[in-house]
């Protein structure tokens, strides 16, 4: 187990290093942050001064080496735009993303798992058809469109919930629903198909032949095995709620989280901020994957051995 853990940890470090490298170089291909910062009336001399101030006048390889050294020391640089430490801004915005993400996860699991299991157990029923239809549309419809629909219906027409911004619990509902929309559809669909496969297996038939109640067969015997692929997918989807989902929801609902910070950083070519935000979210992704791998070991003894 220790070897397993160490090996996963080493993989995680390599993964993060690759992410840092790719983002570092890709970001610099997108344009000049100094031009955006200096404005259209700036002189060429002023831009030279700004470049020197932000270390952008050095050769690219040198900037990269300096940056790696800083990251190794826990220094993620200073935002070109705000002048604040880049990681501090990410941590300042993280609670907002966490709010939406956690509520999104809860909504996802509360809706997707029971509906997926029920649809499989009652195959061919009206609810099964409804669930399958939702699964298709849910994965096809873009999140930002869903978010705008929610705003129109719940905020503009019904005036039940706020259209955006961060505040009390009522501000979290629509962004969380928007974030979880895609995940609900995907997890429900996978749960259903996984359950159908397991429900058709011999040991489940035996359990039913023994006269066990249906809910015991489904939840105690079938679901645990069906949950393994669902777990993998759910873990990735859950993290995606924090990554892509948060970007969309935070932009549409003006929620000041890491996602909107990332979008701003891309627009303004704020390289340190962009790198810090991506590294943070990537570390989160790697961590969740690691957790899933460990959970796998618990659920499936074959993995442990």
């Amino acid at each position, binding site marked *: 187990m220790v070897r397993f853990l160490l090996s996963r940890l080493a993989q995680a470090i390599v993964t993060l290093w690759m992410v840092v490298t790719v983002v570092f170089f890709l970001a610099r291909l997108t344009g000049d942050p100094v031009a*955006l910062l*200096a404005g259209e009336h*700036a002189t060429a001399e002023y831009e030279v001064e700004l470049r020197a101030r932000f270390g952008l006048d050095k050769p690219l390889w040198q900037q990269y080496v300096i940056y790696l050294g800083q990251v190794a020391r826990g220094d993620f640089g200073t935002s070109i735009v*705000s002048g604040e430490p880049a990681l501090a801004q990410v941590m*300042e915005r993280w609670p907002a993303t966490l709010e939406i993400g956690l509520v999104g996860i809860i909504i996802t699991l509360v809706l997707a798992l029971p509906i997926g299991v029920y649809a499989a157990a009652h195959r061919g029923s009206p609810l099964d058809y409804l669930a399958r239809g939702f699964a298709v549309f849910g994965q096809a419809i873009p999140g930002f469109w869903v978010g*705008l629909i929610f*705003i129109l219906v719940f905020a503009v027409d019904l005036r039940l919930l706020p*259209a955006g*911004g961060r505040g009390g619990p009522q501000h979290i509902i629509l962004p969380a629903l928007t974030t979880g929309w895609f995940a609900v559809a995907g997890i429900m669909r996978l749960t259903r198909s996984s359950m159908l496969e397991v429900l058709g297996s011999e040991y489940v038939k035996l359990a039913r032949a023994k006269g066990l109640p249906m809910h015991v067969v489904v939840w105690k015997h079938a679901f645990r095995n069906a949950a393994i692929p669902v777990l993998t997918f759910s873990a990735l989807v859950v993290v995606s709620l924090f990554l892509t989902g948060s970007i969309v929801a935070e932009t549409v609902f003006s929620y000041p989280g890491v996602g909107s910070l990332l979008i*701003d950083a891309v627009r303004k070519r704020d390289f340190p901020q962009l790198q810090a935000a991506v590294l943070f979210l990537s570390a989160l992704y790697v961590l969740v994957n690691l957790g899933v791998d460990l959970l796998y070991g618990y659920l499936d003894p074959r993995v442990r051995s």
Partner: protein
Amino acid sequence: MRRVVGVFVMVGLLAVQGACAPARETPSGEPRAAQAGSGQAPAGQTAASQPTGKLTVGLSSLGTAEAWLPWLEAGREGWLVLDPIYESVVAPNVQTGEIEPQLAERWEVDETGKHWRFFLRRGIPFQDGHGELTAEDVKYSYEMYISDRSVASNKATLQTLVEQAEVVSPYEIVFHLKHPDVTFLGRLTPGNFGVVSKQYVESVGEREAATKPIGTGPYKLIEHKRQQSATFEAVAPHWRETPRIKTLVLRRVPDQAARLAMLRAGEIDITEIPFKLKREAEASGLQFLRVEGAAIYHVQLGGQILPTRDTFDANVPWVGTPGDAASQERALKVRRALNLAVDKQAIINSVFEGEGVPGVAPYYLPGSEFMPSGLQPYPYDPQEAKRLLAEAGYPQGFSREIEMQLMPWPGRAEMVDVGEAVAGFWERNLGLKVKRTPIDFATWVPNVGVPRKNAWVTWAHGYIPRPVSEPLIGMETWLTSQSRYNTVAETPEIDALAMKIRADLDRAKRVQDYRELAQMIYSQYYTVPVAAVPTIYAYNPKAIAAWPLQPGESYIGGYERAVPARQ
């Protein structure tokens, strides 16, 4: 059904992301002239008209750093938040755009044009009892603007123009310029220069002062939620103009469609809307404020550079060989053809929802006093365009492809649509081959020489004029061979006129020079002027009764002038 249609409109708009009262100059710009003033700060409104209520404004941004000292904000958007807090030495009149005193009661400029003397009003208080405005505060503010810490867009200009700021007495300051420049006055206006309390900033430090700013403006910042909102309270009474609305909230909502939804839901009271959302807003019962002349669009024809540049290419059809009259005549016919082939009104109707008027010359507001009278937009005449092109030797169009760079600047997303539309007209009416190249500003700027290097490059430009009495302030970035991004044509004549305007203190003569410049650009068809369009703000009539906005200013401001619907 209506909701569904509206939703699809909003989806389409999401895919697209990112008239005029001329500015007039006060006579004070003349040598030894003085602007009359009371000498003392006005009393502002009486206690009987105390501010009440709340106004919430939806903005796409609260600036870059969200650090509320004028020199720490890099872009113009930061001034949306700085504007209520700070004031400037001079400011444009809200109706005419003419520069008039604000913190200064009057000013003088000597006959050399290099020494500008400002006489400050007495008794102007900083907020929260932080003393009275003096010349030391103005000097300190200037020094901070040009300091190493400064990222203000005005920094480079002030460094280039100003030799020294000299405090003569507590209420008198002289700026000594390196060379005569009439545009200097416009550098001390809101959006370009804000005056802070030297005593306050030095006592609490820059960091503290940036989070708890103190100015002389009509509003005081009381709460700031980073990347969310800034809340202000009216200063009552204010020495200049006491606001009518007590609480001002500037709320950051980056998405255009979301801002409109919030306006419809009553969560904000006013916001700028893009043209494509105008119908949706109208259908919702919202009303509009229009600021005419807020943006002027034209298409640049690349390659019109000085022949001395090593990338000059005389083979570009609209450029011609220097010194060859026949070649120049052919090039002029080609430029005329490129203009006559474009239906400006159709572009206004489709891209700008019918808002705006056809452009006449780049950087000039149609009808402006700086334009010669009688200049009309080039007509739409595709037949004549085709004939001219054939006469110039291109009956089947050009052998090479023109590249149209589609570049959306922040706040001017329509530049892409304008470029696309013009390219379409050239293809349809002239049979030209036009390649569209999407590119954004940050990618384009490092290659700022590309339009100069690649002669076959064109791009649409959406110029935002500044509400100052000197058009050259905005033009200088785009007009001459010394400009960073020339989008007209590099000619010794344009350079000479621009230099003449800059140094001439006689306003009447400058107006004539501006007209001559406009005539020159117009008669030579150097560019393809498209439209002068307004900025549109949608507002809730139950919240706002009136709000005089600055002509030619594309950013909302002057919050103290907003009149609530119920007083």
